[in-house]
Every structure is written in structure tokens, then in C-alpha cells.
């Protein structure tokens, strides 16, 4: 009986000592972190958009947003060749674009390669409310015209403000008019070509008929001769 009580007494005191010891150990670590630099970024005060800007208001070890941060999308319409690959790559269909013909120009992409541009976008819309910032649309874009910016603050009070349009109404009118003009020209050219081709075909036919006619009697002659 007495043995058991001494044993349990020992355990009790052991636990007590251990408990106090570990509490002190934990406290020492907690106290030590009082003297380290705070890691927390005071976000609205510290501009976190780049490594340089973050340094003004923040002295901690974390860094600002990297240049390849996948934020809100932007499109550089001057180098977009309207290839619609980005629209096809997006898994949730949040890019919508319509294309029309334009004057043939050569654009220089972000990576320095030249691309031929024969069509242009009359509508280019991205629904940022739906976009999941996955970056899949930027991969197939050859000139690099669709790209992520490091903007991420875009709170609005209505959903339709989240639909970004990269072609404004005025230029859309012009683009459409130009497209129609070019279409008309192309149509006229096509017709001309068609007419030319028809004429040629007719002529050829006539010629062949003539030769046939010329030949026919001769063949009959030949036959007669035989």
C-alpha cells in the first residue's frame, strides 16, 4: 500500500516538474520571438506590388509580388493577331471575342518574333468575375498580347463591371466599317476572279469546241479515207 502511494507520488511530482519545465521552454521560445522582426505585412499601407515598393513600409523577410504574378488579365490589342487560341484554351469560357478582317500588317510580338495580322478583334471581352487566373490562355498566345498584370484589387458593386472590354465602342465602329469595306473589296475581287475564271473557262470551251469541230470533219474524212 505504502509502496504504491510513494510511486504515484513520484509520478505526480515528476509530471509536475516536467510540465513546468516544458512551459518554461515554450515561454523562452515565445519570448525570443518578441525580439525578432515582425513578418506580417501591413497590407494596405505597404504597397506589395513589387519588391521595390514593399521596402518603404515593411522591413520583414517576405518579398513583394513577383513579375510573373498571375493577376487580372490585360490584352495589348495592338499586337493581338485575333487567332482566337486564348478563347479556345480557357476551360471556363470567360473570354469572348469576335474577329473581322483588317489591313494586313506585321506585328512584333513580346518575344521579338514577327506575326502576320490579317484579322482584328471587334469584340474582346474577359469576364474577370469568372476567371480563375489559371494562366492557360496566355500559353498559346504567340505574340504575348494577353498577359497577367499584378493587379488584384478590383472590387465593384455590380457584376457587369467585372467584364473587361478591350475594344471601345468608337474603335469597334471603325473596325467593323473597315472590316465591311475590306469584305466588300474581297467580295468584289472574288467576283472579278470568278468572272475571269468563267470567261476563261468559256473561252477554253469555245476553243475546244472549235477544235473539235475542226477535227470532226477531218476524222470523218479520215474515216472516209479508210
Amino acid at each position: 500500500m505504502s509502496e504504491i502511494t510513494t510511486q504515484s507520488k513520484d509520478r505526480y511530482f515528476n509530471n509536475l516538474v516536467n510540465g513546468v519545465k516544458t512551459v518554461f521552454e515554450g515561454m523562452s521560445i515565445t519570448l525570443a520571438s518578441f525580439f525578432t522582426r515582425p513578418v506580417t505585412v501591413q497590407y494596405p499601407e505597404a504597397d506589395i506590388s513589387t519588391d521595390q515598393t514593399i521596402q518603404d513600409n515593411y522591413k520583414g523577410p517576405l518579398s513583394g509580388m513577383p513579375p510573373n504574378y498571375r493577376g487580372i488579365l490585360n490584352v495589348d490589342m495592338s499586337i493581338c493577331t485575333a487567332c482566337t487560341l486564348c478563347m479556345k484554351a480557357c476551360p471556363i469560357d470567360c473570354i469572348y471575342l469576335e474577329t473581322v478582317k483588317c489591313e494586313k500588317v506585321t506585328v512584333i510580338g513580346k518575344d521579338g518574333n514577327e506575326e502576320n495580322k490579317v484579322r482584328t478583334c471587334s469584340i474582346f471581352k474577359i469576364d474577370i468575375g469568372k476567371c480563375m487566373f489559371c494562366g492557360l490562355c496566355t500559353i498559346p498566345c504567340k505574340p504575348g498580347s494577353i498577359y497577367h498584370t499584378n493587379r488584384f484589387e478590383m472590387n465593384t458593386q455590380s457584376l457587369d463591371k467585372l467584364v473587361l472590354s478591350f475594344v471601345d465602342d468608337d474603335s469597334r465602329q471603325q473596325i467593323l466599317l473597315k472590316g465591311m469595306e475590306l469584305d466588300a473589296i474581297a467580295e468584289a475581287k472574288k467576283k472579278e476572279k470568278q468572272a475571269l475564271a468563267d470567261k476563261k473557262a468559256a473561252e477554253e470551251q469555245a476553243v475546244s469546241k472549235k477544235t473539235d469541230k475542226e477535227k470532226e470533219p477531218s476524222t470523218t474524212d479520215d474515216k472516209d479515207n479508210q
Partner: protein
Amino acid sequence: MTADLKTSYMTINMGPQHPSTHGVIRFILKTNGEIIYHCEPDIGYLHRSIEKIAESVTWQGFVPYTDRVDYVCSMNANWAYCLAVEKMMGIEIPERAEYIRVIVGELNRISSHLIAIGTADMDMGAVTPFVHCLREREYINDLLERVCGARLTYNYMTIGGVANDLPADFIQKTVEFLNHFEFAMEQINRLVTYNRIFINRFASLGVITPEQAINYNLVGPNLRGSGVNYDLRKDEPYSIYSKLDFDIPVGTGSEGILGDCYDRYIVRAKEIKESVKLIRQCLNQLPSGEIQAKVKNVIKPPQGHIYVRTETPRGDTGYFLYSNNKTSPYRLKIRTGSFTAMSIIPEISQGLFIADLVALIGSLDVVAPEVDR
């Protein structure tokens, strides 16, 4: 008189918005006073029908959805899916891409385990270690953000390699981080893992025997916590794991009974160290060269099916793909570790206190979106 008075079990809803359920899961408890008589997990609150979505998006377009299956370790989820499609199409990926995959995957494993042990501590009422863990995780987020441009839903791996190369200062920054992190992890361990009060709280609690663990198909650290040495990185090596040198920590029942909450906890804490070792090796051996194999813009894997498993932080994640030579999968099935971990809770929780159930859930490291998908 007292013989006529009947007692009955009280039904309590724990969740869906309970802080210890790590997401939206509901437990229907039948309690006998403070003791649980029966516990029924009610899942499905986070179901987003990701498997069905797969049938309407392209093969590459599904990669960002795998991020959302388990957002705590999206890099590993990307990896599992991409590996499955690559195996199906017989794509060889460049060696540099393999090394990069291991580096980012193991970094993500560390951050996931930090969340696991941090939340387990927080469920036990220790909030300080949680903050320490999240602070360290923030460095990893910073590193991965530099690599791929996002902090949580990385979408970094592509079919045939990785999306972009490592930034120039990545290796130096990662080595700096690892040097700092080894010290910080030791502090976290001193703060909680070797803390007598914490050990007494976790040891001999929620014991899962090795037989039970295998029968219920537990995977990953939960299985190894029960003393079963099974890790796909060693037993069925994929990528370049067969070339790398690392150990698999298993539970030993050092503080209580084999397979208790503390074993599962300490396995995770030890695995973090192994991951650090792996990353160091990969950084030393990192070859130069291509990062992306030649893959067409629109891919159509040949007719057939495949099941590929990888070891993610929450255990064995499997992707079953069925292709009928079209631009999107005919059927896709995801198998995750958290789901089986949920199924063992009714059996283990019988007879536990309600407060101990919180510890059990914390030690199983269940992530709700991974359960429901």
C-alpha cells in the same frame, strides 16, 4: 422509482461550421453525457462535381481544377493528374522538369504538413504553434509564387513538364530558406512536439491498430502512423524518387500505444525533415536543359484507361482516366486519402470524449474539399 426513469442518447450536431472540422463537414454525434456513443460523419457540403467537370473540359484545361481538389497541396495534385495523362500517352518528360517537380512538390508537402501540425495544435488549444507554422508556410508560399505566379492554386505542372523555368535566384533563396527553416522547425518541435503537456494530451488517444488501418484503407501519414511502412515514393517509385536518398518515418508508439494520435502527428513532423533532405539533394543535382516535352496544343490520348497513384501529403492520391480518343476525358475518377480517413472515424471515436474527437480529427489531417471533390 428510479427504475422507471429512462435515459436516452443525446444527438449533437458538430459542424458544419465547427472550427475543428477543417472545412465544412458535419458530425452527427450520439452522446452519452460527455462520451460519444456513435459518430456519423456527414459529408458532401463541399461537393463541386469536379469529376463531372472533367468530362467537359480539355485534358490540359483540367489541370487548374486539380488545384481545387486539395488546395493545401495543389502542386502534388497537379502532379498526380499530369503523370496519369503522360503515362497514358507515353510522354517522356525532360529530366530537369522531373527535378523541378520534386522540388516544388516537396516544398508543397512541407507547407501542407505545417498546416496539418499547426491545426492539430490549434485544435488542442495551443494557438501559438499554429502561428509559428503559418509564418514558416508564408516563406514557402513566397518561393512558389516566384516560380509559378500564384500562392495557393499553382497550376504549375503541365502535361509534359512544367509551365515555366525556375527564376534565377530560386536556388539561392531556397537554400537560404531551408537553412532558416531547419532551425525554425526545431523551435516548433521544442514548442509543441516534445512538450510534455502536449504529448500527454495526444498519446494513447484514438488508437488505430495496423490491421484496422489496412482494413479501412488508410493511406499516407495516417497509415505510417500505425506502424505500416508503406510509401509510394519508395514502394512504387515514380518520377526520380528511386534516385534520391530519404527515409520513411513510421510510428513506433514511443509515447503511448502504436497508432495513437501522437504517432500520426510525429510522422508528419519527421516527414518535413525528410522533405528538406530531398529538396537539398535535388537542388544539388539539378541538371540543365529543357523543361517541357513536345506536346501538341490539343491532345487526344489513345483509347483505354489508366490508374496512377502518387504520394501526396494526405497519402495516396489516385487518378483514374478513361479516354475514348477525344479532346476531353470520357470519365475521370479521383481517389483521395481524406475520404478513407473519414470512414474510420465512426469506429475509432466510439467511447471517446467529445474533446478527444477533436484531437482525432486533427491528427487525421482531413481536408474537406478533398473528401467531397
